């Protein structure tokens, strides 16, 4: 039997906030570790991830090679660690780009209003009217392979979401009395945007961005899996899975280890995203 209890005591709220804070610290630490692995990948990997040794090809996981080796005898563990660079750092770059572009466009369009706003919203409607992945495939196909092109393809389809969030937040902050006061005090538009609007709309945008990191990691890896992102021999999780997939039956570790790496990173980013949302927007 479900009874919906809408009244929550102040104490319960405080306990909840404290729990959320603890979780936030734990998941943020994990995420920072993950990024640190990506940044210091070169020093962390036990073998040269690009050194080929055909006599060692398709070694099963062992003490020397804990994730085994691939077709060219390259150590999978080292490749997975170095793969974090292409996979995680480029995802973070992608999320930064779309957050900045989307926020800039949304805030300015919401602040100016009128015709500019109408045009910007039509354009973003148009992007939202497209099935995302199809469009990303098309852009990536047009630009050709490469991590940078995959980032561009996903950035082109993803910014409107941020523009929408930033715009709706700007519209609600714009009418508040402190912004009106700033206008009366003679602040110029950039001052108002940077000093009064951006700090107040930062929360929802941060939540959107944090929740997006996991999805973007998967989409970027998906494009690489299709051969539209990182190109071999560059170690990247999606393309590593793709190149090993014909060997799934005999040498499953070649496919599963980068897959598990993607899974773990996405789990960490999603947990962090959910926690940031709970922390900034407690319900």
């Amino acid at each position, binding site marked *: *039997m*479900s009874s*919906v209890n*809408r009244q929550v005591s102040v104490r319960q709220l405080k306990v909840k906030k404290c729990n959320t804070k603890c979780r936030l610290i734990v998941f943020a630490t994990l995420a920072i570790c993950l990024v640190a692995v990506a940044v210091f990948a070169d020093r962390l990997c036990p073998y040269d991830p690009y050194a080929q040794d055909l006599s060692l090809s398709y070694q099963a996981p062992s003490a020397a090679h804990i994730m085994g080796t691939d077709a060219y005898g390259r150590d999978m563990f080292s490749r997975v660690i170095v793969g974090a660079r292409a996979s995680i750092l480029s995802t973070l770059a992608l999320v930064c780009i779309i957050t900045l572009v989307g926020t800039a466009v949304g805030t300015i369009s919401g602040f100016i209003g009128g015709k500019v706003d109408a045009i910007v919203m039509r354009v973003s409607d*148009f992007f939202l*009217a*497209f*099935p*995302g*992945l*199809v*469009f990303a*495939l*098309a852009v*990536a*196909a*047009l630009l050709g392979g490469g991590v940078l092109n995959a980032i561009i393809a996903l950035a082109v389809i993803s910014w409107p979401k941020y523009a929408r969030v930033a715009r709706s937040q700007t519209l609600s902050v714009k009418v508040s009395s402190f912004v009106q006061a700033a206008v009366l005090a003679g602040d110029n538009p950039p001052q108002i945007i940077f000093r009064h609007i951006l700090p107040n709309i930062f929360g929802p945008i941060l939540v959107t961005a944090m929740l997006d990191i*996991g999805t973007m990691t*998967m989409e970027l*890896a*998906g494009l690489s*899996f*299709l*051969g*539209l992102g990182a190109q071999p021999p560059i170690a990247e999780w*999606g393309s590593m*899975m*793709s190149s090993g*997939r014909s060997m*799934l*039956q005999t040498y*499953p570790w070649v*496919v*599963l280890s980068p*897959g598990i790496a*993607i*899974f773990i990173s*996405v*789990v960490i980013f*999603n947990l962090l995203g959910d926690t940031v949302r709970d922390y900034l927007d407690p319900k």
Partner: protein
Amino acid sequence: MFKGYSLLKYTIKRILQLIPILFAITFLSFAMMRLAGSDVVEQKMLNTGQVVTDAQLEAAKAQLGLDKPFLVQYITWLNDLLHGDMGVSFVSGMDVFDTFISKLPATLFLTVTSIVLTVIISIPLGIISAVYKNKFWDYFIRFFSFIGNSMPNFFVSLVLMYILGIKLRFFPIISREMSFESVAMPTITLAIAMSAKYLRQVRTTVLDELGKDYIMGAKARGVKFSTTLWKSVMRESLVTIITLLALSIGSLLGGTAIVESIFMWDGVGKMAVDAINMRDYPIIQAYVMWMAIIYVTVNLITDLSYRLLDPRIRLEGTDNE
């Protein structure tokens, strides 16, 4: 009478709004193809495996009308398009539109089976999760929903292939024909990700409904909770849930590309991925354009039927105009 009129007006308005979007879609698809530039012609000639001279290249470009101004090319192309002529594939030499239509049923079949499986999984689990809010089953179900949300579909495909196909030999790894046996693994893959997502939305919708006063009223009058759940909550939540699912058809149609190509499911998604690898631009163009058109149309139909089903939204929507 007035309500019916305003819905009709809204419908007409939405269909009119669709026209610029359709133009934009076709223009973008066309521009995409042309941006690839003369490279297309070279690619086409290289695919035939012959040695090509510059004169032959120019002749081929003239034959395809590539020497004319951009807008003229677009209008010619649009005219051909309206007559069902989208050119021929660079690789197979087959008619693009025919190829697309011949592959479409496989993708539609996969889409339908995935949505059916998603409904079967997400609605009961979502309701259980809402009814047992913050109890063991809720946490259990949400845990799996979280896991499902964190796995890219190509990883799920390969894991399923390894476990169900190679180790247990339940299903064929490569689909040979359109049968329920071959569609099983791609369907499960797509349904896992979708169920993980929709389960949460079903949960939220049912929770909203359970929080309403009439539930308390029914409880006070001594109506059995299961009766309230099935007779009232389900009926009220269903509209929202069906809308969400219908909206997902569009994104699903696009999202099948990776899964189709992994399982060798012979639909438009695999066709597109193969075409991308071969730089077969007419096929890519057809895929992008038709997928966008299907997506926009499905979303419009969903939106309209949603308004038809729920008079409150119908009025809100028209009041805002």
